[in-house]
């Protein structure tokens, strides 16, 4: 009877621990989704002429573009910077790369398990759309997808036309974060 109780209590703790972990994981997903809702408002204000609109008062980032994939029903707001704090809320634009839709090479990263999960289904020649802070939509065609080693790659910063590169972790279905490989998709303005 006593042993039974112990097992039962152990199971309870395991249950609680499981619930905590599950909750934590779900929280990450929820944050990624909810933040995008909050960002819609900040994006509207950006389009109406405000600069560097902080989506919430303590934010250290602001929306810089809106990315759409008509084929996969994706519509996300891209944020300034690609630190871990930023990527929790949305795709991040790499400081120092060309601003989205500007002539040059624009680098945007996001998590493989949230905002850029759809990249695994993108095919060559597919269309992506990018809206800049002036409200103009630009269309891009996917010209290349690659898997690269993150520690051994450099990106051109200056290109003749507007190029867009989306980066996410690879493989898509790996469970453990922090792997060295990246899935890199490049699209050129049409």
């Amino acid at each position, binding site marked *: 009877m006593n042993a039974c109780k112990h097992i039962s209590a152990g199971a309870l703790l395991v249950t609680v621990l499981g619930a905590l972990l599950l909750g*934590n994981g779900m929280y990450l997903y929820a944050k990624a989704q909810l933040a995008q809702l909050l960002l819609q408002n900040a994006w509207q204000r950006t389009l109406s002429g405000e600069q560097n609109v902080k989506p919430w008062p303590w934010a*250290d980032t602001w929306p810089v573009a809106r990315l759409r994939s008509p084929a996969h029903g994706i519509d996300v707001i891209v944020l300034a910077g690609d630190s871990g704090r930023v990527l929790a809320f949305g795709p991040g634009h790499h400081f120092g790369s060309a601003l989205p839709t500007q002539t040059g090479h624009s680098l945007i990263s996001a998590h493989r398990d949230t905002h850029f999960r759809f990249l695994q289904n993108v095919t060559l020649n597919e269309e992506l759309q990018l809206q800049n802070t002036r409200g103009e939509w630009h269309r891009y065609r996917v010209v290349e997808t690659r898997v690269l080693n*993150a520690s051994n790659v450099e990106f051109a910063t200056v290109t003749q036309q507007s190029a867009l590169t989306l980066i996410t972790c690879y493989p898509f279905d790996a469970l453990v974060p922090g792997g060295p490989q990246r899935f890199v998709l490049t699209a050129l303005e049409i």
Partner: protein
Amino acid sequence: MTRQQQQLKRFVQFTHLHVPLERDVFTYLGACFGIGLAVSLLLITLVLLLTTPVRADGMPDSIQHGTLFMKTEGSSERRETPLLHTDVQLKITGLIARAHVTQTFRNDSDTWVEGVYVFPLPENAAVDHLHMQVGTRSIEGVIQERGEAKRNYEQAKQTGKKAALVEQERPNMFTNSVANIGPHDTVIVEIEYQQTLRYDQGDFRLRFPTTITPRYIPGEEPGGCDDGDDDAAPEESEPGVSASAEPAIVNTVSDAARITPPTLPETIKINPISVHIDLDAGFPLQRIDSPSHAIVVQKQDGRRMNITLADGVVASDRDFELVWTPQAGSVPQAAVFSQARDDGIYHLLMILPPPAGTSNVALPRETIFIIDTSGSMAGTSMTQAKQALAMALERLRPTDRFDVIEFNSRTRVLFGSARYASLDNLQSAQRFVAGLHADGGTEMAPALRAALDGRAHHDVLRQVIFLTDGSVGNEDALFELIQRQLGDSRLFTIGIGSAPNSYFMKKSAEFGHGTFTAIGDVKDVRARMSALFEKLEQPALTGITIAWPTDTTLESWPRKLPDLYAGEPLIVSARSATGSGEVSIHGTRGLQPWQATLPLHGGKTAEGVDVVWARAKIEALHDQALAGLDAAQLRQQVIDVALRHHLVSKYTSLVAIDVTPSRLDTDPLHTHNLPVNLPAGMVYSKVFGPLPQTATPAPLLVLVGGLLLLCGVIVRLLATMA
């Protein structure tokens, strides 16, 4: 009673039963925790075991080399880029250095290539000759308006002729384009320039930059006025044009693409360079040394010396610096050099005012420190900057007030308004400085705006000390901001790192009525900072004016003379018709007037004085543009003087074109931008950013959490049933 209610009841009984027996409770909780932990660990191990094969199967062989806009080591793109070797021959005579920079482009590929190389030169270099060596023939470059030179070059490129084009992007940054380098062929381009040396606190200093610190391009995107059209490039909007309307700070850099050559990671070093110097100082020397490189000094006849690098050929990843100190008392306090040309007599005057004798330590001071903590400062630069700042803080007196501002993508101010240098305040400043780390962009304008308040401070001497590598592309916008916001503050720049943007540092200090100090290495921090303190603590010679002999054709540059700090000479050039008469110079130090007179004639004759004059005139014209000179007028005046003196400027380029075509129309030509080295001590990933981590632990958490939850529920169910 449902099963749930039963369970609940058992749970309540269970806890109730054990509450009084404390020891049991702990043992029990420990055991439970142990079981829980063991189960979780087991599960996590299981999950990891399950997931690892997935990663291993993840197409490891498909990792690509050399893709569209990405390069990985060993990519074919890199092998096709022409290789470069640079040789620098410098001849130094007194105050003037003349340099022959030979760039050898070797094409190891099987295709025809065009090499485009963005390279640095000293910020006061006057580039006046270009030769292109093709086989045994030498082709002399001609000076043309920038648009015309570019058109001629493009035409030669299209028709298969070998050609070289040298254009100015910034006073210290040039582009050399070389077209039609044949497969396995070599083209040698020789560029000549002249510069005036820096004489400061008893030392002569020469800096030869060899690589470019990656420039940060701030803020908004370009207005689309310049889409790379050949003629449009030099005529970009000048900030000065809109100066009458209160300008929203112009943060655009329309030529960003031209000043950001590809930069290699720190692990790769290319572009080897060799340096030979023929030094005729004109005085017996007490010391000669290079803080940047190991050198070998050989005495020639008399006072001449030959200087070479001890290692022969080195990687071009840091400025080469040479310092020589004449024996005390051997340098005259004033000197005039003259050169007669058909359009007049050119003069170069150097006057070293005597030391102040008094100090301004008695005046209350307010010191604002600005420290650049952007990504390009990461590595040894940050160590230098922190040490220099810590030293400067120690030097403050309790009656001084101070504040510290750090900036990268954002600006952070320590106090908000200057506070007395009490022990407490100094301690919090030292903690603030120690806690700084470098990362992010170089948004310099907000930091300068925070430091320069645009006001006059009658009761206090306000000094702003700015530690940075100056790696920005919006120099003009910042100069304008400094001029507008300065008030009666003084801006002192301290150049940090192995390849600071000396043009930005020197001109900012000039517009800020301060002075520029360079620290190239951690071991120099103490000596260079002490030299700066000496300048900060002695009154500057201000309001300097020159009365020239009455000669209506006399033209002297610069017109607006800088303030002089301890140990700095006044250097000014003039062109006159007769070359006779007397020059008198007036100024004020503290409250004391100072005056000197010297004759124009009777000086030493020297070569290159005309070039010094023309270069000074072009620089002064650009300064006037920032103060409101019309852009079209500026352009025309610069073109006039540059064409007459054969100088490369913002609006004129040197171009050399072979007569006979060497490439057939049927062979394609590939253009390659030659990469530059990352300056020594810098951290590539901090400048260009590492690829971010792009996966959350969410899937793992959900999986492990879900499994644990399931496991717990099942075990409890089983226990209940038992």
